[in-house]
């Protein structure tokens, strides 16, 4: 550490030197952190640019029409029955079906979990469930897929008609994976509620369930919906766990227990087996573009819900 009296002479110049160092240091720090932020922007722009440039070539270079691509229900990229056909409706259907069902299964469970932690037994309830939720969030998706494949699929095969693989297995696996997302958002919302709200309801003689169902849940509904959308976004983009249990047949299944596919599962499986630049490969990139587009929609939904929440 330098002290002032080390340099008795030339106080003025010493001072201006310190002043300059002070500014140079700050400038360096500010520039460094700004470069890091700028890099984030560069990354996102290049992801969007590269995925879009590959994904759009299906429509511009390979001459597949957008409506045939999105709404065609036949996927025959190698042209086994005549001309190659690139209809991805079955995969879009699979992605939406699994993520919606997963949200449908996970939401009530998550809401109960967060009510348990904040309203029923705030003390040990939180101590018990918080680590449970964190661990569920930490288990890798391939492990979920592995357990789904070795436990869930045989179970479904024995109980229901069909081979066990399919949308039911996929959405059950996904529902466990998105439980932590919805629960933590809902818990945050519930624990930040003003105390007066609940107390006035109790003062009116309402039971706990009346308070929860008519005061608390309506108040935190936008936050809970935010959590559900975030969970769905995660389910929609999850690749390997779903791919392992869904069966990977390229058509719209007639039941929940019949082999199906999602956008992510097809990309995962076919990307390694196709040649870069071929029409089949481009179609996979177009699916990645669709995934990216859905991400934007999910983020937009979250934003809209948050705005509503603020009022």
């Amino acid at each position, binding site marked *: 550490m330098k002290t002032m009296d080390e340099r008795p002479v030339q106080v003025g110049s010493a001072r201006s030197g310190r002043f300059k160092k*002070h500014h140079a*240091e*700050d400038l360096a*720090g*500010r520039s*460094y*952190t*700004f470069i*890091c*932020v700028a*890099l*984030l922007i560069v*990354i*996102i722009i*290049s*992801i969007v640019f*590269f995925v879009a440039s590959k994904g759009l070539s299906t429509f511009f270079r390979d001459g597949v029409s957008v409506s045939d691509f999105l709404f065609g229900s036949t996927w025959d990229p190698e042209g086994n029955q005549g001309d190659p056909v690139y209809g991805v409706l079955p995969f879009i259907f699979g992605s939406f079906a699994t993520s919606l069902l997963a949200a449908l299964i996970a939401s009530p*469970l998550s809401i*109960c*979990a967060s009510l348990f932690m904040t309203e*029923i037994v705030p003390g040990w309830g939180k101590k018990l*469930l918080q680590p*449970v939720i*964190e*661990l569920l969030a*930490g*288990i*890798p*998706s*391939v*492990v979920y*897929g*592995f*357990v789904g494949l*070795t436990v869930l699929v045989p179970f479904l095969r024995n109980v229901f008609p069909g081979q066990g693989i399919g949308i039911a297995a996929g959405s059950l696996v996904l529902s*466990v994976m998105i439980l932590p997302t919805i629960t933590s958002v809902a818990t945050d919302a519930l624990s930040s509620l003003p105390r007066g709200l609940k107390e006035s309801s109790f003062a009116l003689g*309402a*039971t*706990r*369930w*009346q308070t929860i*169902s008519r005061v608390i849940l309506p108040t935190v509904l936008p936050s809970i919906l935010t959590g559900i959308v975030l969970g769905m*976004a*995660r389910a929609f*983009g*999850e*690749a*390997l766990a779903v791919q*392992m249990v869904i069966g990977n047949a390229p058509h719209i299944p007639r039941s929940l227990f019949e082999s199906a596919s999602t956008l992510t599962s097809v*990309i995962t499986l076919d*990307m*390694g087996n196709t040649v870069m630049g071929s029409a089949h490969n481009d179609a996979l*990139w177009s699916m*990645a573009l669709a*995934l*990216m587009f859905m*991400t*934007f929609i999910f*983020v937009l939904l*979250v934003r809209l819900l948050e705005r509503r929440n603020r009022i």
Partner: protein
Amino acid sequence: MKAKLTDKIATFFIVFFALLIVAVLVGLIGFILVRGLGYINWSFLTSPPQTIRAGGGIGPQLFNSLFLLVLTLIITIPLGLGAGIYMAEYAKPGKFTSAIRLVVEVLSSFPSIVIGLFGMLLIVNLLGFGFSLFSGAVVLTIFNLPLMVRITEQAFRSVPKEQKEAGLALGLSKWKIITSVLFPVALPSIVTGTVLASGRVFGEAAALLYTAGMSTPRLDFTDWNPMSPTSPINPFRPAETLAVHIWKINSEGLAPDAAQIAAGASAVLVILVLAFNLFARWIGGVLYKALTASKRMG
């Protein structure tokens, strides 16, 4: 009395579902450990995998996972800290800042497979790094960066305002305040967050399939020259991680004991993730004690 009965029934269901979640976790972890632990021994953890014969291990995969995590953290930490500090200390409320927030939000919600494909296109093919640990580390950095930025920003924001004001009153530059006043206080939560994020990186597979690759060359663990193609520490060799290996043997495993290997590898992965969780909690507390004057976690 109807309201009271409804209340009782509702409470019962809430408790039931909450305990169901606990049961699911206990069942999951119990199943993985019971299935896998019996298969884990020293030779399983160290020997290379076999393609068609029984008795293969996960040695190279385990090493690859850990090495890839180290490489990822080397790239992620400086970038994440920088961007997080900018968001917490330098960013002024306005259009630009909210645009960056949107970027971070979108980046964190991109499916990992999309980030993997981007990495394959740009780093593996266009820049010519091929399927390599380096490509994998870059992709995992992109995957991890938004979380890292958020962790850093929150850690810096939660430092009491008085500490910063005291620094300003001493005439320190803003950067000096950030590095010597705020950073030590923020460090425990940054480290905890980073370790937790590492657990997530450790289990990631979808982004790595087409960047770090699905195979590992025959590694020579006596060769420590980073440029040699069979050296374990060469960052430009292909590397199949543990998570990718689990996926691969489940979907195309030919070895007769593929199911046991998958179980053993899953158990190793889950144990490591649990270890990351416990370590994160422990190290946060230790650092907090070492770096601040407080006795307990606040």
